[in-house]
């Protein structure tokens, strides 16, 4: 049963021509189409992210949130393309980007971390060498400088014994540590945007909280704009200024976090909030009288 198209409450996303100088990422009516099954998977997502802002995308599996992230990164799978709308990354329309442009943008302007951190690292090379590689190849540092900077970064993401972790292989580290490694790599070139696609989903509850705290700290300290994607409303509620609720590729509801949580307009959103209250969402809600 497909939902009605997005009902926008709160300030409607302005068209791309009304660009604000502080916009790091603008999606305008983005549609994504699968050529293999000849179906549209994402039906018009719009959002506007400012420097230092945090936007959350919530939805179940198959809602299109990961595809949207991949479109922003330019890594959609084969035979799946952006079929409508536009993505403006740091003022540039991604449709005009060549492969070389994309390579230059990734890492330096936009970084990403995903679910299952272990699988996103090369199993045959120590994790430190992989961070050093980025710093050497993209950052232009010498081997020793890159090594030193890598250890600094590991320390910045609160890895204990960063020098030892540097020399470990993937299979010798826990999920939480690996995610910190990946975050360190993602921010190593000082990007403006960080995408965290289900970054905490595969981790233990306590580790989840630690990672979210880390992301919050980095956002504040580095002025990083964050796109936080999750199926878990609680994760999103903790950090985000604005929330998009996705279902079957449609934006069901979109707006400031406070309003979405306290005054959801759509049935589906109400369902999500109600579900979470059972599991203690109240800690994230400001002490306002709410009747949900």
């Amino acid at each position: 049963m497909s939902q009605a198209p997005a009902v926008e409450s709160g300030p409607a996303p302005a068209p791309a021509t009304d660009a604000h100088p502080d916009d790091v990422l603008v999606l305008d009516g983005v549609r994504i189409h699968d050529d293999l099954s000849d179906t549209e998977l994402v039906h018009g997502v719009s959002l506007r992210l400012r420097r230092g802002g945090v936007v959350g995308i919530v939805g179940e599996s198959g809602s299109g949130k990961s595809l949207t992230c991949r479109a922003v990164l330019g890594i959609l799978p084969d035979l799946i393309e952006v079929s409508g709308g536009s993505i403006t990354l740091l003022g540039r329309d991604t449709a005009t980007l060549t492969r070389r442009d994309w390579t230059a943008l990734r890492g330096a302007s936009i970084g990403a971390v995903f679910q299952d951190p272990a699988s996103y690292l090369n199993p045959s090379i120590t994790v430190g060498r992989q961070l050093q590689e980025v710093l050497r190849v993209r950052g232009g540092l010498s081997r020793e400088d890159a090594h030193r900077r890598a250890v600094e970064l590991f320390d910045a993401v609160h890895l204990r014994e960063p020098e030892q972790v540097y020399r470990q292989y993937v299979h010798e580290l826990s999920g939480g540590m690996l995610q910190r490694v990946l975050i360190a790599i993602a921010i190593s070139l000082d990007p403006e945007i960080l995408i965290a696609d289900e970054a905490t989903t595969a981790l233990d509850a306590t580790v989840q909280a630690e990672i979210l705290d880390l992301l919050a700290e980095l956002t504040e300290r580095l002025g990083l704009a964050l796109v936080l994607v999750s199926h878990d409303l609680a994760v999103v509620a903790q950090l985000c200024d604005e929330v998009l609720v996705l279902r079957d590729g449609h934006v069901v509801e979109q707006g400031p976090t406070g309003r979405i949580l306290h005054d959801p307009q759509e049935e589906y959103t109400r369902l999500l909030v109600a579900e979470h209250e059972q599991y203690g969402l109240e800690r994230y809600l400001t002490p306002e009288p709410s009747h949900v």
Partner: protein
Amino acid sequence: MIKVLLRLTSARIAIGALLAIALITVFGPVLAPYDPLQGSDLTLAGPSAQHWLGTDYTGRDVLSRILAGAPLSILSTLEVTGIALVLGTVPGILSVYLGSVFEWVSLRLIDTLVALPFLVFAVAMTALLGNGITQAMIAVGLLVAPLFYRVARAATLTVARSQYVEAAVLAGASTGWIVRRHVWAKVLPPIAITLATTLGVGLVVISSLTFLGIGVQPPAPTWGGILASDLDYLPQKAYAPIFPAVIILVTVLAFNMLADAIRDAAGQSGRALVGAKAARANRARRVAA
């Protein structure tokens, strides 16, 4: 899966060729125009109306020898493959269920067999144990068995440790149903692929052995033996090896094409190959609209 298989052109070509070879095997000696053992004065003649493929160094008709040689070569191959199938598959499947001692011992045995250079051991075993074709087949079957062992073991491991089997057992499904539904589907395709590949390998090995004169009593015709005698008379008749070589090659190629076709039909790459074309058409339509 057989339906998918038959839709692939490569499978159809392979099966067609194999049916032709089967016919030759069964009817070959009867179809041969001349007595394959009968020499004549017309030695090393080229192809002509009376001798379609010419004659060999003792004046025997080449076509007749090739047709007569079919049963020995093909049937030996079938027997070798059968021996390998039994000797390999049964321990392979059992190695998953009979405990770690059996598993370790059988794994080391298989490693050893794999390490033994094929032909050297086949030659040694055949010649030392009495120069008969039966010894050759047992020897080769033993040496080829590891292929079946590994495939059967890998497939059984996947099924035995899979969660859907566990789920089915928990849901109360009978063993028979589980075997039919899950085990067959997972174990049969790899075994079928290995079977087809082994038939090809077996024919090559049998031909090599008969080429060396091992395991066959001359002057009985074998495809390998014909090649060997052609080699001796190469300066006089350089194109002679083509005829036995072609029939060996066609048969081996057909076996391998069949193996590849089964692999494609059972796996995903077939679907991907079919899908990519359709996807391109969809995209073209969408962009044009």
